[in-house]
Structure formats: structure tokens, C-alpha cells
């Protein structure tokens, strides 16, 4: 990739992604969504 293409690539990337493997986690989901969403917003803005 040329340098310009690379810069555009990373401009499209969100600052952070969180991966959560889930197995029978229905009870934790609402709280998880709330806290993790808040943490990501705090750390990286509205990506």
C-alpha cells in the first residue's frame, strides 16, 4: 500500500475496538453494554 492509502486506511479505523467472547452471558449483557460503552466513549470519544 502506498503511504497515502495507508493513511486513509487508518483514518477510517475507529480508535479502539473491544472484543467480548460471550457464552451464556445474558444476565451480564445489559450491565456489560452500559459499562463498556461508557468506558469506550470516555477513552476514545464517539468513534
Amino acid at each position, binding site marked *: 500500500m502506498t503511504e497515502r492509502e495507508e493513511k486513509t486506511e487508518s483514518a477510517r479505523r475507529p480508535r479502539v475496538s*473491544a472484543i467480548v467472547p460471550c457464552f451464556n452471558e445474558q444476565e451480564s449483557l445489559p450491565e*456489560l453494554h452500559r459499562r463498556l460503552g461508557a468506558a469506550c466513549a*470516555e477513552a476514545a470519544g464517539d468513534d
Partner: protein
Amino acid sequence: MLVNYGSRDSTWPAMIDVAQRDRHVVAVNLARNFGKEMALSAGLAEAPGERVLIIDADLQDPPELLKPMMAKMDGGADVVYGLRPDREGESWPKRAASAAFYRVLGWLTDIPIAHDAGDFRLLNRRVVDVLLAMPESHRYVRGLVSWVGMRQEPIEYRRPPRHAGKTKFTPGKLIALAFDAVSAFSIRPLRLASYLGLFAGVGGFLLLVYVIWSWLAGAAVQGWTSLMVVVLLLNSATLMVIGIMGEYLGRTYLESKRRPLYVIERVVRKDPANVPGAISPSAPAGAPESRA
């Protein structure tokens, strides 16, 4: 990115619901229970972020730490891993077993695997790319991240007891994970087997010399008991060697199949182009994604 791997309750429908309402959330459903390590691998492959946070769903790892972890990475770390100084809510035997496990693992392998660190990590993009380039089938993500090296920094935190649900790691699964971890990173057990075989061989030979000498010298013939002891020792050494060799042969066989690691059944996200809340699968139905 929530990755569901074979939940039997209503986790997946709940995930679809959240993903349709919140554009930040992407729900990924693996076609069946491929295991947590595979779910993590799928997430790593699909996650678009500059940095990737791996976190458990049970909220024993606090999401609030993300901001300080990002700050550490801004300071130059490539990996920020969570370090738990103590384990509240875990039984004593499990704690002792875990400490012993990491000590033995550290001795058997040459890579620094931090004890008391779990899966809770923030990874840099280039670390993720290196991980994705690894075609290994037996995935032990924790160990692979350590293997990659680069600059890894810990962040300490306290781990509260589980928010909901029960632990997935039965003793059987933990032992299996231990075997996986050791054989993924070390051939020292194989070396041990060779030493053991050598020792048994040498010992047996010396014993044989002694037996013949004492027979020649007219001393009392060795009893049945000592014969049995020797037979048993040699046989158990042989069995041990076969077992360890079998472990590696098995891995070579499985690795050579080049089977896809997992199959993504579909991906759901809030689609701004269409009607809000519509499900947009990443592939047409009937053509599930697979990744080798």
C-alpha cells in the same frame, strides 16, 4: 464487538437487540461452540480498531480501566495486560493450582508469561496483525500475545467476584488448557521424556551389570521382587515417553489438515443506509464465512 460462541440461553437474541440499537455494537455469532480461544480469534480478525481490548463478559475485569490502559499505550506500550494482585472470590485450591501452573509453565517455556494475568488486555494494531498472521490451530491467545514480544506493560487492578453466571472453566477444562499451553510453547516435555528414557536405560543397564556380577560372584540370586521393580520402572518410563510423543504427533496431524479455525454464521450491526435496525448479514444466507 460481542462474539457469541454457542450460548444455550437467550444471549444471542439479546446481542442482536443491542447491536441493532447501538451503532457502536457489533454482534458476531459463531456457528457453534468453538471454544473461547476461537471466539477471541474471530473477534481479533473482525475488529477494525486501531487498538483492541480483550475483556471477559462477566465484568470481573472492569471496563473502566480502558482509559488508563489507553494512556499507557499512548506512552509507548504495544500491549497493556491486566495484572491481578489477588484473587477474591476464588477458592484456595484454585489459587494454589493456578500459581503452580504458571510457575511450571514459566519453567517449561522460554517466554515470559506473567502469572496472575488473565485475558484482559489492550493490544496495539501491529500486535493484532502479527497474531492474525499466525496460522496456528491450537490457539492459546494469552501465550501467543506473550510470544509476540514487543513492549508489554502491566496495569494492576482488583478483580471482584463474578457479576453473573457461573465460571466456564471446570477443572477438566483447566487441565486441558494447561496441556495446550505447554505443548504450544515448549518441547521441554519431549526433552524430559528423552532424558527419562536415557536415565531408565542407563539405570537399567547398570542394574543389569550388577545382577550379572553378583551372579558370577555366587551371591544370593536377586529375588522376584527386585525383578518386578525393574520391569515396572522401565515400562512406566516407556509409557510416559509414548504419551508425550503422542501429544506432539497429534498436534502435527491436526495442524497439517489446514482446517478453518471457525465459521462465522452472521454479523449483525446497525445499518445506517437501510431502515434503522435492519439486520445486514455479512454474507448471503447459505454461504457462511469461514476462515482458514
